[in-house]
């Protein structure tokens, strides 16, 4: 290659290199951020609080009138100034007079209702006392009657037996020569009689148990229903208290339960007394087997007093375990000595001998109450099937009861009753089965006895046969009568005891008279107001100097229950009120002197002290600031601007806020310019310096000394994003 060509190539190479040098430098400069720097300044941080608000009155007056009055004329408009006594509006006096008349009539009605209620309350109290007395009387009557019936049946039975024995004795003595097996026959008959006696005892006992179980079921149903009602009564109690009537549901329940318990105890005691006699009878029976029946029974019944306490103990122990069932079952046991002597005079002696009402009547009454209607009466006091003495109260109570939506419905109560009855159904069936079994056993024993007696009679001569048959039939009839009497006595005691308990259940509380009185008083107050308005001829005037701010009524329309007019009370002065942010709230406080400027800037008030700065009730970010303004400076409702500047102490290092940045950990930093040597020569780059911000406003931030000197150039602006280490060019 020629040297000339080589030289040209070399020259070209260097020219190219020169071009690329220029190009690469140009490209390089494009990536360098041009920044503006500033040195930290020594200055104060000013916090300006600027907000706009309104001038409002210090106090507002509400002008009200009675509701439902027709407005005939309104003499003011919103924004109008009024003086004290100025006519504001007028209402229709004709309508007013009509209302006054109506009110007076209503009051008269109310007065009558108060009287009625009081009278009804007295009547119902008297009726209640009467029904209680009746029930007590009925109780004593029915128990006495039952006792008398029982003793009568017993006497008849005894007589029949005596006759039979007498006849047999005479027959035996007549035949003793002919037949030696007479004693053996008598033993057989005794054994059969004894078997019949046992079966009868079992039957009566089973009957008693069944009765007791029925009573228990009824009691359980009553308790369940009562609980259901009480559960809701607590809720309704509040409503009643509001109307001023004292609620005595709980007291009532407690009383009724106590009363029931008391009656049950009485019933128990009665049967305890009977039971004592029964024990004596049992003793009689034991003795009677060995010796002469007639004599021994009387002797033992009167004389063997030491046996009685044991019998009482035994009965009591049973009574402790069970409730109302025990006296019944005890009686059933005691009633076993049908063919023996019973010393029942002690019991019957305490009862009056009146026998006007028959057993049938009592049984019917007992059945009527025993079928559950008494509990229906308790749970549904408003029903007319209740006792007559409560009628007056019930009528007055009706509105109260109707306002109790929580009261269980009849269907629910029926369901509760069904559930309780279902729980007992098994027991009841068992008891019924036992009764039927016992009855069958008794009938079998009776048949066996009859058969034996017939066989024996057949053996005897035909003359005696007819007489003996007659006598045996008498005994049997008498025995059945005695059984019936015992059962009737049992039932009469239970049923009439229950009637006493029901009669003693307290009446529901009744405060209707007081409620009516209260209504009357309220009406009286309204009437006074109406008459007051009538006196002023239906005119409503301003009570103070003020400015009408709102009118809620319209001419021709009726007034409502709300405020008719709102007016600013000018005598109490004005104030400026505005909202500021939480941030602004830091720099303004009570007593700070602020400047108020009207919206158009024409009116200015300097150095007015801030009256209060308070937080908003709903938002944490909003505060209310108020400033009292002098009278006649700004009008009410005018928009006014507030200006206030809080100056801080002088800080040696303050930088423009644009120079402050936050890193990923939210720590503040600034970027300073530093020079460094590179291949390109001395270049400038940004360096991150972490700082502590002492205070800042929307323009400047005061930094803690130390991190930055007063000569440091701080980047405040750049044309590209600059970070730590970025090359920069100070423009």
């Amino acid at each position, binding site marked *: 290659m020629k040297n000339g060509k080589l030289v040209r190539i070399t020259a070209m190479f260097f020219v190219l290199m020169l071009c690329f*040098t220029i*190009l690469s430098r140009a490209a390089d400069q494009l990536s360098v951020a041009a920044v503006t720097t500033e040195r930290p300044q020594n200055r104060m941080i000013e916090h300006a609080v600027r907000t706009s608000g309104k001038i409002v009155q210090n106090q507002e007056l509400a002008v009200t009138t009675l509701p439902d009055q027709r407005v005939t004329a309104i003499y003011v408009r919103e924004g109008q100034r009024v003086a004290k006594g100025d006519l504001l509006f007028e209402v229709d006096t004709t309508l007013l007079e009509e209302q006054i008349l109506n009110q007076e009539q209503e009051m008269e009605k109310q007065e009558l209702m108060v009287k009625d209620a009081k009278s009804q309350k007295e009547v119902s109290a008297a009726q209640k006392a009467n029904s209680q007395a009746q029930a007590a009387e009925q109780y004593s009557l029915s128990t006495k009657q039952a006792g008398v019936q029982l003793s009568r049946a017993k006497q008849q039975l005894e007589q029949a037996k005596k006759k039979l024995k007498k006849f047999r004795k005479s027959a035996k003595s007549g035949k003793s020569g002919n037949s030696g097996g007479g004693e053996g026959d008598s033993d057989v008959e005794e054994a059969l009689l004894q078997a019949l006696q046992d079966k009868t005892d079992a039957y009566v006992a089973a009957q008693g148990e069944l009765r007791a179980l029925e009573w228990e079921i009824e009691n359980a149903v009553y308790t369940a229903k009562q609980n259901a009602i009480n559960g809701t009564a607590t809720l309704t109690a509040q409503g009643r208290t509001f109307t001023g009537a004292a609620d005595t549901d709980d007291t009532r329940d407690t009383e009724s339960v106590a009363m029931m318990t008391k009656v049950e105890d009485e019933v128990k005691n009665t049967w305890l007394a009977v039971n004592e006699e029964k024990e004596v009878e049992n003793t009689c029976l034991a003795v009677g087997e060995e010796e002469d029946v007639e004599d021994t029974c009387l002797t033992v019944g009167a004389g063997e007093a030491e046996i009685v306490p044991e019998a009482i103990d035994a009965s009591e122990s049973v009574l402790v375990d069970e409730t109302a069932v025990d006296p019944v079952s005890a009686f059933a046991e005691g009633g076993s000595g049908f063919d023996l002597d019973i010393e029942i005079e002690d019991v019957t002696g305490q009862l009056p001998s009146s026998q006007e009402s028959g057993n049938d009547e009592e049984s019917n009454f007992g059945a009527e109450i025993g079928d559950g209607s008494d509990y229906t009466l308790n749970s549904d006091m408003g029903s007319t099937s209740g006792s007559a003495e409560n009628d007056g109260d019930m009528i007055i109570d009706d509105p109260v009861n109707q306002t109790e939506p929580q009261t269980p419905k009849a269907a629910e109560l029926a369901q509760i009753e069904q559930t309780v009855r279902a729980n007992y159904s098994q027991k009841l069936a068992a008891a019924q089965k036992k009764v039927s079994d016992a009855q069958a056993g008794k009938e079998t024993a009776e048949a066996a006895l009859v058969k034996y007696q017939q066989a024996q009679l057949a053996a005897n001569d035909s003359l005696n046969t007819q007489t003996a048959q007659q006598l045996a039939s008498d005994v049997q009839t008498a025995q059945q009568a005695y059984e019936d009497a015992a059962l009737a006595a049992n039932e009469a005691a239970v049923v009439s005891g229950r009637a006493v308990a029901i009669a003693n259940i307290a009446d529901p509380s009744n405060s209707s008279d007081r409620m009516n009185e209260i209504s009357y008083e309220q009406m009286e107050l309204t009437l006074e107001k109406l008459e007051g308005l009538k006196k002023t001829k239906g005119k409503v005037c301003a009570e103070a100097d003020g400015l009408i701010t709102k009118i809620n009524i319209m001419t021709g329309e009726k007034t409502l229950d709300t405020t008719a007019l709102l007016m600013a009370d000018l005598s109490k002065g004005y104030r400026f009120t505005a909202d500021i942010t939480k941030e602004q709230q830091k720099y303004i406080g009570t007593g700070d002197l602020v400047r108020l400027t009207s919206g158009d800037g024409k009116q200015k008030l300097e150095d007015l002290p801030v009256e209060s700065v308070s937080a908003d009730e709903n938002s944490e970010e909003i505060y209310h600031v108020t400033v009292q303004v002098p009278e006649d400076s700004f009008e009410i409702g005018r928009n006014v601007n507030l200006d206030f500047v809080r100056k801080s102490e002088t800080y040696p290092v303050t930088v423009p806020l644009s120079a402050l940045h936050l890193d990923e950990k939210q720590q503040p930093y600034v970027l300073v310019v530093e020079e460094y040597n*590179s*291949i390109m020569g001395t270049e400038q780059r940004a360096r991150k310096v972490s700082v502590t911000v002492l205070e800042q406003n929307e323009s400047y931030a005061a930094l803690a000394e130390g991190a930055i000197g007063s000569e440091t150039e701080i980047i405040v602006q750049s044309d590209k994003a600059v970070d730590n280490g970025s090359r920069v060019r100070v423009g």
Partner: protein
Amino acid sequence: MAKKFVREIAYLPLILLAGIICFPVLFAATGVFMQQWELEDYLAPVLTGTEGMASWPLLPHAPTLRSLVELLLDSPQFFVMFWNSLKISLCILVGQTVFGVPAAWGLARFEFPGKQAVLLLYIVLMLMPFQVLMLPQYLVLDRFRLLDTHAAVILPAVFSTFPVFIMYRFFCGIPEAILEAARIDGAGHLQIFFRIGIPLGAAGIVSSGILGFLESWNMIEQPMTFLKTKSLWPLSLFLPEIGLAEVGLGFAAAFMMLVPALLLFLSGQEYLEQGIAAAALKE
């Protein structure tokens, strides 16, 4: 015929050797056109210490001019160093010419007491490596407050003994008769030096110049030791600044660095060969 065959056979090992010697140039040339990822793949065992051996293909897998464009358009630093290198090299070249040529002429053509001692000193100094001279040079430069300037690199090289020694040999080769004839014609010392000495010793001057340029173009210890300011660094220090992430840029820079030296060598190849041959023949 047999002789010709033997000669051809003898070329084979020579070609092989030439190939081995040329391989680094090929290495640099292919690297310029490789993508960054490709370079990282091949050189990772060397540069990052991962296991395995570095490999090198004869041709790039995905040829690109990206590295070259990046170097030429986006690396102003490269050009700063390039021009620094050129400045240093040219200054050294001029200096060696200004001071070395008269020195070599004087040693070759004048007789004076202690001439042999001076020659010996020149040879000894020429043989001494930079590491030996570094400290004394540093101290001297520091005393002259020349450290961290280009003069610290240029001046010691200007007064280097090697070009003087090369040119001394050339000047020695000029026949005394020519100089005698000139003197008879009335030429003075300066006229003889400029009109006879330099033209006749041009081959030596050029060859020493080329060698000197190549040496100063590639010098690395001196700038590294005496220059702290990066903006003064020559191109030889650009490559140590390059990491694996910019290895493509490094190959491009190496390639560009090769171009001026190659052009100069090609320009002075004739003189260089002459000079070396002349020196050899003289010996």
